[in-house]
């Protein structure tokens, strides 16, 4: 019995299907004016990869600067600009659109048996908005940067810095609308475009997760938009909504900002959770343990996610009574994540597990996200939050969730669906190595930061007391390994575009509708409108399907 589920067609005869969404039309304009969700997904994939490497380079600069206690590599204001740009690029231009705009865009219509998203033009518009936001961020970077931190804290951002707050604000505003339109498109598509028989509880959990994340995008992002508009108005004409000298309350900005930016964390992580559900099910050949619980936990996270934002402000002088409410709700929102982790774990139980790269990344996700989630409880608990907030503990926590969680899930998903998107396999051995390197590098980079945080090292410090150096050196050393871990995939994935093995329709023997069609898919996805007559993750159905094929061919 082999230890892999990969079943590829005979390489000597197999060919990439002649007509597919990539070869359908040629020329740059056929890409830039496309309405095809798959092509837009590719456009997104290229652009977010570009911004990921910009953000990553900035992260490298940060880690280099922190190698020594003094601010010697760059001046403090340069450092401030670097971490601000790192935050803005990574959050608004990478993490928020990462899985939804690439994998979600590509897969949601196929998974629910539709030909395209409900609003293809809006989908393209949202990519253009993203690009405009990205260009504005690049412009900011070139024309002197911005040093407010990605949180735009007033009155610092309105009155006390003279860097490019406006262009950054505009960039975030526009990128925000890109994300609103993506979310809106997903919700409409999931509601209105499902194939016959594709009931809510037959949808893959990937779709459920995106549905939950889309709700957050649609309802949360506009509040960020108005907060940014008010900051811009305050900076330009000097209105007094957040300005304490005019009677405004700077805490109100925090309320509005975190009303979006806390749910934004779930916007980032929920699609990743969707990926993990698919991957774990496929590589253990088993239906996800407690499908309904996992589906509803996504929705629960989305709903509760709106009621916990004040835990970012516990020490900022909010009322203690409202702290109690928000802290309690924070504890409640931690539970659905715990449910998910245990349900994934028990999906493995009595499965038939193989360890291809997507599964390795998924294992990485489970470990790191568990740590990230549990340390989140430290911060949601009001007492310990006092000591740990605004230190490297926070930095480590959200990097465990965002990088350890989301990025692992993203890479897992990219590897998992790479054969579907390109029609070719990635090289297995080196990608397993990359997964391992990423995991090790990640822990080296961010685990020391927990200890630094407990010791009290504040975040956003260009210089720090010398006794923190050893841990910072560890962290920077880890970041180098992590950097290699991220460079490897882009190299071998690009290589595989030409030299990878032909994947065939369903290399993983997975059950989703996307695996029943050719890879890369046709522009219309399906030749015949599919009729869903089985549940998601029904591996017995898949077996029957294969037998049928064999008998019909025989």
């Amino acid at each position, binding site marked *: 019995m082999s230890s892999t589920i990969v079943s590829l067609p005979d390489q000597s005869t197999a060919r990439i299907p002649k007509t597919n969404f990539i070869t359908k039309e040629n020329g740059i304009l056929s890409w830039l004016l496309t309405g095809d969700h798959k092509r837009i997904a590719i456009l997104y994939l290229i652009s977010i990869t570009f911004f990921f490497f910009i953000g990553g380079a900035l992260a490298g600069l940060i880690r280099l600067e922190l190698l020594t206690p003094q601010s010697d590599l760059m001046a403090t204001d340069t450092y401030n600009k670097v971490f601000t740009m790192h935050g803005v690029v990574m959050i608004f231009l990478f993490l928020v659109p990462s899985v939804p705009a690439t994998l979600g865009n590509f897969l949601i219509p196929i998974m629910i048996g539709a030909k395209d998203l409900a609003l293809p033009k809006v989908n393209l518009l949202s990519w253009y908005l993203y690009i405009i936001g990205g260009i504005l961020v690049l412009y900011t970077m070139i024309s002197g940067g911005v040093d407010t931190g990605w949180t735009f804290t007033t009155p610092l951002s309105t009155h006390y810095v003279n860097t490019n707050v406006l262009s950054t604000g505009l960039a975030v505003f526009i990128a925000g609308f890109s994300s609103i339109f993506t979310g809106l498109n997903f919700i409409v598509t999931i*509601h209105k475009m499902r194939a*016959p*028989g594709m*009931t809510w*509880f*037959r949808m893959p959990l990937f779709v459920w997760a995106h549905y939950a994340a889309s*709700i957050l995008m649609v*309802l949360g992002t506009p*509040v960020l938009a108005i907060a940014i508009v008010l900051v811009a108005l305050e900076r330009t004409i000097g209105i007094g909504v957040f300005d304490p000298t005019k009677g405004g309350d700077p*805490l*109100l900005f925090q*309320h*509005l900002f975190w*009303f979006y930016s806390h749910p934004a964390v779930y916007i980032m992580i929920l699609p990743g959770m969707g990926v993990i559900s698919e991957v774990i099910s496929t590589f253990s050949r088993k239906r996800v343990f407690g499908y309904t619980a996992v589906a509803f936990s996504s929705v629960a996270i989305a709903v509760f996610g*709106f*009621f916990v*934002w*004040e835990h970012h402000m516990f020490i900022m002088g*909010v*009322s*203690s*009574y*409202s702290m109690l*409410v*928000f802290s309690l709700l924070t504890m409640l929102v931690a539970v659905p994540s715990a449910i998910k982790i245990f349900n994934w774990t028990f999906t493995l139980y009595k499965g038939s597990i193989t360890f291809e790269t997507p599964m390795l990344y998924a294992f990485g996700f489970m470990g790191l996200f568990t740590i990230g989630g549990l340390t989140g409880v430290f911060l949601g608990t009001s007492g310990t939050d006092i000591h740990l907030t605004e230190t490297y503990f926070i930095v480590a926590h959200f990097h465990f969730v965002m990088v350890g969680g989301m990025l692992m899930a993203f890479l897992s998903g990219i590897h998992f669906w790479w054969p579907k998107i390109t029609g070719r396999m990635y090289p297995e051995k080196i990608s397993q190595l990359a997964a391992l390197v990423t995991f090790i590098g990640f822990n080296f980079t961010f685990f020391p930061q927990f200890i630094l945080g407990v010791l009290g090292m504040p975040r956003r410090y260009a210089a720090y007391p010398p006794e923190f150096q050893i841990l910072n050196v560890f962290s920077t050393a880890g970041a180098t390994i992590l950097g290699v871990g991220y460079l490897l995939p882009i190299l071998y994935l690009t290589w595989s575009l030409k030299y990878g093995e032909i994947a065939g329709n369903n290399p993983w023997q997975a059950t989703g509708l996307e695996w029943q069609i050719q890879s890369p898919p046709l522009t219309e996805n399906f030749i015949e409108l599919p009729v*869903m*007559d089985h*549940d998601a993750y029904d591996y017995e159905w898949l077996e029957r399907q294969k037998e049928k094929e064999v008998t019909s061919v025989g």
Partner: protein
Amino acid sequence: MSEQHAVEQQGHKEHHIVSPVVYVVIFFSLLVGTAATIGASYLDLGVWNPVIAIAIAVCKATLVVLFFMHVRYSSRLTMLTVGAGLFTFMALIGMTLSDYISRAWGRW
């Protein structure tokens, strides 16, 4: 497993055309509402002034939503959407105010 789900299908939903009479009635109700708001603001009703102003505005908005925007004749999904919007709107206002109102209760 659940075949009834698969078959579940709404009948061909007739696109409801609202008669202009309804529009005219609503239009005049809105005008009356506007007059009522202005009138009420000139009466000293203490704390009830803003309450009445908001109440009238809510009534007017409801009329617009139900008739001009056809929600009365729309699917449950549309109503659910409107409801979700109001819910989140109230969450934003209510939860933010929970901080502002209770700040006065204690010295912290």
